[in-house]
């Protein structure tokens, strides 16, 4: 049986196709202004790439903030449940998930069966999210893809004390003006995110193994800073950005 998961995030829309527990394929596009159109397009493009039609797909589950805009979904689940299903699929041992998406971040704890026990979500603020990193990368004039690894070369991370994205940006601009080294500033930015995320994780409790999912999991600097801060290794989801869509497809198979 083939099932599909559609994850409409604030910045990107993701689709995944799963057949009997095996990932057939996945796709990521920008969400843009129209969440409904993005959901339809990413799904149709993925179907065409894999060479199946919508008739071959038994069930579709939509997730993410735009989940209710996906008219062709059989059911919707929140991204917290979808990421839990996706992480449990990738590694059934996982007990704690950090999901850092474009505009929100979540700490999720799972029981032995992969069921969500507890969760904490950031509160209407972009601090500690992908958007925060985008703003900082722009201020630093560094391509987002290089941004993560660049901080790994830092010997003396700069201190960013503001939690607010807007204030942190002006703090970063002051550091640039003072001539601080780029890797050190970027490393400081990653440490500030790690501090915020680890406080959230403390509230649900950190039980190993810990997995990071969501687009920001692709940023090696954030992962390293968070791992250092928590003092535990962090497993990066093999499909970080598509994890929610894969989880949704897994949930669809159980409908």
């Amino acid at each position, binding site marked *: 049986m083939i099932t599909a998961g559609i994850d409409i995030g604030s910045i990107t829309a993701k689709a995944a196709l799963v057949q009997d527990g095996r990932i057939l394929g996945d796709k990521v596009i920008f969400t843009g202004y129209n969440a409904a159109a993005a959901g339809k397009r990413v799904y149709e493009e993925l179907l065409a790439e894999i060479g199946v039609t919508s008739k071959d797909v038994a069930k579709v589950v939509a997730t993410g*903030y735009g989940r209710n805009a996906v008219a062709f979904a059989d059911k919707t689940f*929140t991204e*917290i449940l979808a990421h839990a299903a996706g992480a449990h699929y990738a590694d059934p041992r996982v007990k704690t998930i950090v999901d850092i998406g474009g505009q929100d971040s979540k700490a999720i704890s799972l029981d032995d069966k992969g069921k969500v026990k507890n969760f904490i979500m950031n*509160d*209407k603020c972009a601090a500690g999210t992908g958007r925060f990193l985008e703003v900082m990368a722009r201020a630093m004039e560094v391509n987002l893809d290089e941004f993560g690894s660049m901080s790994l070369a830092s010997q003396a991370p700069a201190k960013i004390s503001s939690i607010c994205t807007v204030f942190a940006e002006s703090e970063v601009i002051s550091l640039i003006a003072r001539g601080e080294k780029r890797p050190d500033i970027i490393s400081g930015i990653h440490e500030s995110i790690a501090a915020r995320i680890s406080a959230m994780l403390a509230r649900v409790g950190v039980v190993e193994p810990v997995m990071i999912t969501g687009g920001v999991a692709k940023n090696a600097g954030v992962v390293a800073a968070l791992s250092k801060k928590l003092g535990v290794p962090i497993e990066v989801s093999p499909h970080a950005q598509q994890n929610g869509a894969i989880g949704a497809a897994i949930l669809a198979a159980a409908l």
Partner: protein
Amino acid sequence: MQKTDLINALAEDPHSYLKEIKQKNAAKVIGFVCSYAPEEMILAAGALPVRLLTATENPHRADLHFQSYGCSLARSILDAALAGRLDYLDGVVFPHTCDTIQRLSDIWRINLPQTFFADVVLPVKLTSPAARQYLLDVLQKFRGDLEAKLGAAISDAALQDAIRLYNAIRRNLNRINELRRAHPGLISAKDYSDWVTAAMRMDRAAYLSLLEAFVADREQAAPGHPASRAKKLVLAGGGCTTPDIYGAIEEAGGVVVDDDLCMGTRYYEALADESLAPLPALADRLITRPVCPAKHAGLTRRADDLIARVRRAGADGVIFILLKFCDPHAFDYPYMKEMLDRENIPSLLVEMESDGQAGGQLQTRLETYMEII
């Protein structure tokens, strides 16, 4: 139902109703800011007591007086008053409960001197033997203040009448709470909230007759009401002026079966003893009513009460709805959550501003919570 329309409309905009009733009945309208106000006394003085609950999106006038990390409800009320939107009030009563209301009272006295103004300085610790005598003195003083400033004598007979009227309202509101507990979904959370809010604003006698009709209507509908499959929830927290969240809870698959809100059971649950003299009856009611976090009535009283509510309703969980920067509730939250955890009662914390909208993030949190409890 037409009657509910009026109640819903009153929750949206009380100002035009209050201006109209003031003109029609030639009655004075006295605002109050907290459910500890001795409303019976105001009513017995021939005035209409009205709870002030306003939501102002950008309270820039209040910002001149209040820090921006002050409670949004107090800031909104002050802003509305400074903007002249509460000019129809003949006075305001400030029961001393939280620090913010006490500061609001000072700011009001200095900046809005044109209206009648009274502080009701309640005891903080309600369980001590001295509290009752102190409260009797406070009520006696308030009675004198009202009489002097409104130019009306408050007779014992008028107070007894007011107590009886309030008790009748409270009995009916308690019946509504029983009905929603026994038949989840029979009364929507928004309707419930609007009825409780109207109880604090409308002409009380007119309200009682509408309420009695509503209760009778719901009693009749109850036996045929389909069993609800939604998750049964108890709401805990302060004055919730964001009706948006009720719709969001129901959309996420929840149904509210009880609460300990200031705009809920804390307001109406306790009745005054009609066999006592009026002042002791009022004092005893204030001492024994469900307690506010700004008052003390035992170290774990609020959590004990909340757990009892969950058990009694067979609820699946608790949602704490706290106003941002409400210190008394924020101080109580950790111990209450801990006690709920020990009882294996799941809970979710939602912090809101008084004009807060239920956005996508809140919906996601609510939906996930309903799924895991």
